[in-house]
């Protein structure tokens, strides 16, 4: 059964053409899907709908059995705690919290005990090679390090789906390569991954399936072997 089901979804901003027009897409558990397309093609809009950061004007969105098209903000927040890990292009870390505090935050919101959350965070930070920065504040870290903190935060609650919006867009090539490797490794371990990017090489490296959007519609949907 698909973990993500998007059926006939339309999302329009203002009077212009829709950002997404009657789009239908499914994602199976364990898939790594790259959403490609030029600026304005609807990639980030689709990601936002899957993350319940936004609501469609019409159509249905179901993720992990949760219907998202008419969901309220409170329910959306609880859904994200339970099922979604988000990685943003510009990291979106809270700069007044330390690295460790940023990472444990979703787990604490979900009700995980302090000690358990701290243990899990430490494990993740170590796995990502940034445990020495646990007590530092994000402003002190490089872009690559910050994105790895964001990945750790996204993985805290063992999400059903990991969503990444241009995860290497703000990074240099070396840091970007680190993040690519991370995402690939996570997917190899069974993590369902939906990745939005305009970077063909990132899509080729990290995803086994490429969905190409143009003007809010799916132009192509190709399953390829990922270059790992």
């Amino acid at each position, binding site marked *: 059964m698909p973990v993500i089901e998007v059926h006939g979804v339309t999302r329009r901003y203002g009077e212009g053409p829709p950002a997404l027009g009657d789009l239908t897409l499914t994602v199976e558990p364990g898939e790594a899907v790259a959403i490609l397309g030029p600026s304005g093609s609807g990639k980030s809009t689709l990601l*936002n709908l899957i*993350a*319940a*950061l*936004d*609501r469609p004007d019409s159509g249905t969105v179901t993720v992990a059995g949760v219907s998202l098209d008419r969901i309220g*903000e*409170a329910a*959306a*927040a*609880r859904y*994200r*705690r339970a099922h979604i890990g*988000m990685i*943003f292009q*510009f*990291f*979106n*870390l*809270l*700069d*007044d*919290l330390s690295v460790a*505090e940023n990472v*444990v*935050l*979703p787990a*604490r*919101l*979900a009700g995980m005990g*302090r000690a358990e959350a701290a243990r899990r965070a430490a494990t993740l930070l170590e796995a990502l090679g940034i445990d020495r920065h646990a007590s530092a*504040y*994000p*402003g002190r870290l490089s872009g690559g390090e910050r994105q790895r903190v964001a990945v750790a*935060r996204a993985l805290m609650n063992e999400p059903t789906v990991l969503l990444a919006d241009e995860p290497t867009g703000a990074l240099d090539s070396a840091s970007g390569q680190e993040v690519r490797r991370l995402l690939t490794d996570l997917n190899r371990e069974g993590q369902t991954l939906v990745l939005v990017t305009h970077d063909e090489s990132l899509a080729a490296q990290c995803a086994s399936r490429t969905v190409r959007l143009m003007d809010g519609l799916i132009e192509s949907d190709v399953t390829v072997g990922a270059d790992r």
Partner: protein
Amino acid sequence: MSGLATVVRSGVGRRRVQTVVIALSAFLAVTAAVLAGSLLAASKAPFERSFAAQNGAHLSALFDGGRVTGAQAAATAHAAGVAESAGPFAVVTQTPRLPGGMGLPPLTIAGRDRPGAGVDRVTIVQGRWPSAPGEIAVVDGPGLGDELTFADLPGSPAFTVVGRVRSASSSADAWVVPSAIPSLTSPGSVPGRQMLYRLTAATTTAEIDSERSVVAAMVPAGSLLGSQSWLTLKQAADRNSALFVPFLVAFGLLGVVMAILSVGGVVSGAVGAATLRIGVLKAIGFTPAQVVRAYLGQALIPAGIGIVLGAVVGSVLAVPLLKQTEDVYESSGSGVAPWVGLVVVAVAVAVVAGTAWLAALRAGRLRTADALAIGRAPVAGRGRRAAALSGRLPLPRPVTLGLAQPFARPGRLTAMVATVVFGAASVALAVGLAGTLGLIETARTHDTAPVSVDAFGAGGRFGPGGQVAGPGERSAGQNAGTGTGAAGQNAGAGTGSTGQTAGPGTGPGGQPGSGSAGKQADPLAGGGPSAAKVESVIDAQPGTKASYGMVEAPATLAGVTGEVDVVGYSADPRWAGFEMTEGRWFAGPGEAVAPTPLLTAAGAKIGDTVIATVGGHRIPLRIVGELFSTRNQGMQLFTDLSTLSAAIPDVTPSEYRVAVAPGIDLDAYVNKLNTALQPLGLGAMRNPASHSDVLLALDTLTLFLTVMLVAVAALGILNAVVLQTRERVRELGVHKAIGMTPRQAVTVVLSSVVLVGVVGGVAGVPAGVALHRVLMPAMGASAGIRLPRALLEVYHPWLLLLLAAGGLVIAVVGALLPAGWAARLRTATALRTE
């Protein structure tokens, strides 16, 4: 710590500037509000509160000490209708002089061993109550430590002023210990006996009069020398305080409004600037309710600290402020009302919580994607036109960059402009108020002459060193200002053998010793030197600039209940501070000007003729002008002396006022004039009415409140510029990376508030002027008088320009700290900020 607590703790602890600004705004706003609220509370019926606090005397009576024994006087305490009493107290009237020979008006002095005597609990404003002979406490005039000598008494006893006090009952002008009274008693005379009564029924004049009759019937006929009703004092005090209540209420309300705007603006601005953060919190799982709670906590923690501190500091600062208010209202007992602090704290918490809740709710309700997008690029599309326009200006680039910045956030820009508008309006109102109130104080008493001449000056026949008042004569005091205890007296005819004054009284004008008779025994009796003779001596004195003589005669006016005064002038007195509301000054005999209250009471207007009966003579007076005056509660007619002398040939001025040339040594002038006047039985002294403590108190109040309001406004700007600068920190980093110097960074930040300051000042000043135009007539109307237009014309063009520039000053002062931060910001740190 739960996720929510972690976010709140970090939001408060790590965002120190925001935390400090919220705390400081709340502190200043609450301090201003507590002060303003205390003022409002003190302005509510100040005389009644003061009178009640002192357990004031509804009726005071002075008995002839030679005919009424102490036991007889004490027995009147049991008269029907008397609820409580104090006394009998020995009372004398003597004229003191200061070191150097400067004479003072006569003082009614009572012997009392403690201030709290049950009835009329005198309040000690400064110093202490006398505890030994040689010590005296006064209502007004001399300062602490001054020595008063009574040179016309055997041994010239001297008393040191140890206390300044206030009596709502105006029962005396000064107090000594009872054992000191004999040394203050003229040889061959007996001190009067004063009784003070609280009555069971004292709300109407009829009730007071009835009780007076009961008391008089308990002592030998004719031995009740005089009495005073609290209703007369209340009327005069209300008229006096009514003039200033709107001013204090206006400032009080302005303080409260500014406080609410300031705190609300700071908190909502802080939350509004956190849209991105709110989006991130929601993206990782915060529900909207959790977001609201997080921001409520982040606002309430620092605000709570500021609110509590502000309430404490405001209450402490209110003490000296309320003392100034008491000077204005001539009241006492205006302590800080605890309920004011509690109400302010409750309102402040509600405002902070309300604005934080609304702002967080608004952001929390945004779709998370929108919050992330708005928070990430708040300036997208906004402010571009302003940036393009400013870029074309022939100004340095840092200036044009700064000028356009506020337009990226129209809401914040509006709030900033509103803040400066309020600050500038407050300053404009304060300046106008101070100017007008100064003119009002001068005009309402119109007694600015620095020197006065009468029989009680140093060399005068009733003055220190002069002839002692003989039997049958009452010692007269100076004119009492706006109204005195004398107005309510049934002064007995003559005072018996001693020349003791017929009763106590110090008018709300604060003139010492001026109450009692308040007037000469018979101003129309003549016998004094002619005006021409006196004025020739005065004019011959080097340093004399101008002078006039005046006589104030009691009269009745057809159709008007009660007594009015007819004041005749021997020369043009307008330089002493007279202001016309309408019409013109009298130009010749038969013409008169009158204040609004008299015209209203008589149903007369300019052009009408009224008939005044003066000393049995009917004198027609054609009203040619309406004058601004509150003396004797506005029940006076002013005319030329020749109008009176046409009907009463022997009438001569009883007092003179003298203006001196600039730079003249006043003390030396007075001494020389004394010497020259002594053969005429007159003496000169410094005119105490020319100095107003009321004005000083009002100016101090105005300055204090204005500084508070301006500080609150500047803090609002500080907060907005801090938010603005933090939002643009990455942009600032880019500019610094490509060569912007720290000084240029300062220029950018300061330029960003220039338009705000200019527009705010230009809009705020007319608002303040308009408020002044509304407030001043309201003040007059509440006192039953019309203010002359001249008293409102205090805003000269150069002053308006200066005030408008004040808006810019407020804005720039608020932006200085963030400008400094922008200058010191390390480029690398700025570039790394998300």
